[in-house]
């Protein structure tokens, strides 16, 4: 990777993007946690597109569904915390990216698909899920946790001396 300069404004905007996405994840998880009997079933059941069978099968099995619900809620919360704090940002970012792509592929806004569950606005292939996924990709690629995030400290603490020497050489 070529060494590039990143100025204060770039750092701040990257951190802002990270924190806002984290907030969104955190609240999505928390709201589901607090809502008694929340279930992904109806979202999964209206799945369209190439993976529809897979998502519908998840909704069809009570055993699997209870795992999906649990993983989704705690996944959202942990990813949210990671992004807001900027700790383990790459892990959180990649996990968030994968999670959102799952949502995207469950209800893809492709031409000729119609959904009845909440969506605001009109989309053609690109929806807000995809935009958020792309934003996470940018955060992961630019290692966003290092600016105004815990990774800034964690990185220094966890860095192995051998690597440090190499870097200094």
């Amino acid at each position: 990777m070529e060494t590039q300069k990143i100025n204060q404004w770039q750092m701040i905007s990257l951190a802002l993007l990270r924190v806002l996405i984290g907030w969104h994840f955190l609240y999505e998880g928390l709201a589901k946690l607090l809502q008694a009997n929340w279930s992904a079933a109806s979202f999964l059941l209206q799945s369209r597109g190439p993976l529809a069978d897979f998502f519908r099968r998840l909704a069809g099995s009570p055993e699997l569904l209870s795992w999906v619900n649990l993983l989704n809620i705690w996944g959202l919360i942990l990813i949210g915390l990671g992004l807001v704090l900027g700790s383990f940002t790459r892990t959180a970012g990649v996990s968030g990216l994968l999670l959102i792509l799952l949502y995207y592929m469950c209800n893809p806004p492709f031409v000729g698909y119609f959904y009845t569950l909440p969506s605001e606005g009109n989309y053609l292939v690109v929806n807000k899920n995809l935009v958020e996924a792309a934003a996470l990709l940018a955060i992961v690629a630019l290692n966003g946790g290092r600016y105004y995030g815990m990774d800034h400290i964690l990185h220094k603490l966890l860095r192995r001396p051998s690597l440090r020497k190499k870097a200094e050489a």
Partner: protein
Amino acid sequence: MGDQDSKDRENTKGREPGDGIGRRDLLQGLTGLPVLGLFGYAAMKQKRYQEARVAAATEAAPVPADLAEINVALLGAGEQGDALMNAMMKIPGLRFRAVCDIWAEYNLQRAVNRLRRYNFEVNGYEDYREMLDREKELDAVIIATPDFWHAPHTIDCLRAGKHVYCEKEMSNTLEGARSMVLAARETGKLLQIGHQRRSNPRYLHCYEKLLREGKLLGRIVTVQGQWNRAVKPDIGWPRRYAMPEERLKKYGYQSMEQFRNWRWYKGLGGGPIVDLGSHQIDIFNWFLDAMPSHVIGSGGTDYYDPATHEWYDTVMAIYEYRTAEGIARAFYKTQTSNGSQGYFETFMGDQGTLVLSESEATYSGSIYREISAPAWDEWVRKGYIAAPKLQEVQEETGAALDVRETVSPDEHRIPIRLTDPYHTPHLRNFFDAVRGTAQLNCPAEIGYETAVTVLKVNEAVEANQRLAFTPEEFKI
């Protein structure tokens, strides 16, 4: 990694040389914390706002100072027990003392935890006899167990001196239902059966104001009821909470599968005609002020696997009533395909049609005036019914009205809505009766009449013929 380090060093102003973590590093690293604090603050505000809204929408009447507390136990903490518990949360003056469920690993634990969270000191029991032995202070027991347990549970609770609210169907057998009525009479304790529409303000309004006082429908000639239910997979259970086989057998179940899906098994439940139909057929008897004289039925396990669904998933029944005004016929359908058009009851008289449903979401209530019937303006002024919907202006479409068609009647909405959970008014009626301030809306005798009316459908389907009721059949 190395690139990252050098990049980092170059781009962060004010960093001390070397690898120590400086004040600036800390400040940068902990930027997320205040954001997290802000999030916590916002989330808390949001939660309080939502709670306040729920509280405002469901605000209970102020508790009178002299209101005697009623000690309550829940027997059966499954899906229906859960619904009843929710419905009771809004009734003042109740103190939960005990919960009993044989599925101690799951249902019982969940209900006990929940009630403790609401600051009730409840004890959990697996065996209801032990509960009755130990909990001497109980005034009332709410029973929401599978149908085949209703008779033994109710009778033992009544004999232990408790008032009982028992879910419908009163029993899966008429002998069971009859012994419940007798036990209530013997002990002098109250027994309310859970046909909760009997206390629903909209149903009461329609019966008392529209049918009895206003006689808005004229003579009722036909009745129709339906419950369209969508196919769904059998009910499962988390494997790690499965009950030991020994306990299942002790309480009359062959397996966890049968325990969870008892409604489909002969000897345990009565199938959808009993689970769903019973609620609505009960309204036929009530609104017609009569018991049926005959029934024919057609049904079968048409959709599901009959090995695990012994009771009919699809039933159509036609009753014949001899009302004070003449013959009335009532059709009821419950079926398993999809849930469109849901559930409602329709009463058609020579002056109008009443369509109503327990569901607040759809068909919550409309009454249609036959165009030749006397005007209903008086009832609109009294607030019994809403003003008629404006008819759309007829456009010149060129289509001629066929001579056989009649002009469509005026539609008036029934202006009564229930904002509480569906079971709250019926439970409130029960507890008011316990306090001696009300009469039961569905005492054991009425539950028995409905059981006689509904269980005969399964008999008619099996016999594949028209069956007659005798007036004595409904009496004990």
